[in-house]
């Protein structure tokens, strides 16, 4: 999973029927220290995340599909599965290349 910040939601009336009622969110992947990394991406919401929230995004099809729609097999590869309260990082443990 990765950490990301929710930038907002994308409204799409015409979309794959198996998406159901799940909201499509635009998220910016971040490092544990909060710095953005890489390009923003879309993820379906399963925990009622809101704009500005730091969230946990799973990037695997089965997990994303079952978490956000309740069943496997929908064309979804990323979903928000948790809202982060805090991240504790001990940078002394290792120098990351992020």
């Amino acid at each position, binding site marked *: 999973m990765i950490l990301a910040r929710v930038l907002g939601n994308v409204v799409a009336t015409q979309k794959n029927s198996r998406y159901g009622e799940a909201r499509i969110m635009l998220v910016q992947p971040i490092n544990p220290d909060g710095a953005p990394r890489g390009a923003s991406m879309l993820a379906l919401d399963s925990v009622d995340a809101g704009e500005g929230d730091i969230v946990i995004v799973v990037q695997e099809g089965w997990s994303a599909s079952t978490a956000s729609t309740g069943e496997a097999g929908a064309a979804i590869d990323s979903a928000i599965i948790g809202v982060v309260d805090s*991240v504790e990082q001990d940078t002394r443990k290792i120098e990351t290349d992020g």
Partner: protein
Amino acid sequence: MQLARVIGNVVSTVKNATLEGRKLMVIQALDGDLRPVGKPLVAVDSVGAGAGELVFWCRGKEASFALDGVEAPTDCTIIGIVDSESHVKSIATKGATKGDRK
């Protein structure tokens, strides 16, 4: 599967119900020489790993098989704690030596 160092933890109250009670750790994947590979990830812990420990983890759908029959949405699960770092380092050194001979 890959080696990784546990470099922190994530606290999340609102999360998928199947992940309740599970520890979420920040890990940095490592190569055989214990050098960082890629960016830090969030992993579900299935073995009781703590900060600073050398662990190995599994990616993809298979990561959800490690959680005692409960198939939780995870693509990154810590599935083992490495006992001896020096042993890993010695294997890596051997590998490098073999490579030099080619």
